[in-house]
């Protein structure tokens, strides 16, 4: 099970209710390989989330096409899963049932198998003992763990993450970054991971490859390979090479971020 994704000359244009058009994504090409962690980094409104949604199939591209193993993406499929920015947990389901949400649509598994899988991922994301808690009883960090476990539970080939740590406090965020690598284990399972963020450090720390996006219409300005072996520890962030990469990306993005701010 190793899929690859080709993004070919993809554009996306929206129309506002006022009739004004917004060119969100402006001609993106990329080739995503299995067993790799990719980050999309760029200023607010650069179309990186839109691109993520298009890869997922929630939105069709206005022009261009996105191929998954050679066939065009037409909609969400069970081999893709998304981790949302807001945890989006169903308030009427407890932790176990929330994790089970995606699994319920897989008719090849029996109820016991589903429970076993839920159990496994509850363990992996470190929520043992919280199985019967409702979302409002969990902290933000725990909610994001459920959000992640729900996506991992369907064992997707492609894992799409839309700024999953944006709403966490700084310390929790650091710890989650470190743990995330263990939880996903994309190298061994051959998953493609796409991680959208506007935190440059986070992108460099987690990724094998970082795509830097320009402001609207979003295009790829640079594709940067991060050489450190995975899994990484937070120590990596202090190495001169790491800092250099981070610095280079900021040089590249600073003007774009300024444009976004003045918008």
């Amino acid at each position: 099970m190793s899929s690859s994704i080709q993004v070919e000359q993809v554009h996306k244009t929206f129309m506002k209710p006022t009739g004004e058009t917004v060119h969100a994504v402006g001609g993106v090409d990329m080739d995503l390989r299995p067993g790799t962690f990719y980050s999309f980094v760029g200023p607010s409104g650069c179309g990186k989330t839109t691109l993520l949604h298009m890869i997922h199939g929630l939105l069709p591209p206005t022009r261009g096409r996105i191929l998954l193993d050679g066939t065009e993406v037409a909609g969400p499929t069970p081999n893709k899963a998304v981790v949302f920015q807001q945890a989006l947990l169903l308030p009427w389901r407890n932790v176990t049932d929330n994790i089970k949400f995606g699994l319920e649509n897989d008719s090849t598994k029996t109820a016991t198998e589903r429970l076993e899988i839920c159990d496994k991922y509850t363990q992996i994301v470190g929520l043992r003992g919280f199985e019967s808690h409702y979302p409002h009883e969990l902290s933000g960090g725990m909610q994001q763990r459920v959000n992640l476990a729900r996506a991992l539970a369907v064992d997707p080939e492609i894992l799409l993450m839309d700024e999953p740590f944006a709403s966490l406090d700084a310390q929790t965020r650091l710890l989650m970054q470190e743990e995330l690598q263990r939880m996903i284990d994309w190298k061994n399972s051959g998953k493609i991971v796409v991680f959208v963020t506007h935190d440059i450090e986070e992108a460099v720390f987690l990724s094998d490859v970082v795509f830097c996006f320009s402001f609207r219409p979003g295009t790829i300005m640079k594709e940067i390979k991060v050489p450190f072996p995975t899994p990484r520890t937070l120590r990596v962030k202090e190495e001169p090479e790491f800092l250099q990469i981070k610095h280079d990306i900021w040089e590249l993005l600073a003007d774009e971020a300024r444009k976004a701010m003045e918008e």
Partner: protein
Amino acid sequence: MSKIQDVPLEETQDSSFVASVKTVYNRHRIGINFCLSVVLALLTWEFIDFVFDDPDFFTGPVAVALEFGVLIYEPRFWENINYSGTELIYGFGLAMILGVVIGAAVAFSRTLDEMFSPILVGLYATPRSVAAPLFIIWLGLGIASKVGVITLASVFPVIINTQAGIKNVQGEFRMLGRAFNISFWAMLTKIIVPGSLPFLIAGLRLGYSRSVVTIMVAELFGAEAGIGYMIDHATQTFHVAEMMVGISLLTIMGIAGNEILKGVERWATPYRKTLV
């Protein structure tokens, strides 16, 4: 963060004729659907009339409009409107004043809150307009008994919403007021009143709609004049067109008052996004 990238709106279309019609429809779809809907409603109404063809049983919009045209020349008709209008103004006005005063009292005093909130919440769940016959005995067949019932029926949403509004603002902004060390008066005028206004107006809108319903209930059980009285009278003589005129009048009163309060809401709290 800009909303555009998260909320995909209409896709851009090719510029064929069908597409441009579609675009126009999409842009004005709410208005177009509204008009279609109203036209369809009137046609259905008239069609049912056509099917029954019995003015003692059902009348269509045309017949109702004609009846209305006849009635406006009768002084009795205007007397009825005047009567119900007076009931509404006094009843709802009283509910408004009492509601704000009681609501503020239970919001500011913890003891009063603990003493009377259970009773208020309990009464809120009761069908209060069934007390109408009692009011007739206490206050007579005239306007006073109707004002009493209308006040009783519509005061509770005002009380509960006023209380909720003030508590909400206090919970959120008390620390801000403390931090800037402002006086109680400034706290009241600068924070509590403007902050609880949206709740208060929501309460007034609910109370108003209760008021209009209660006009009907109160007058039904015994009155000297009024729109409810007119409907009841028309029922006894099987005068369906006149009944429908009465019902339409009450509906218009309901819509008009609600729109006015909505206008007040927009004027008083322009910083709030209008709800769809």
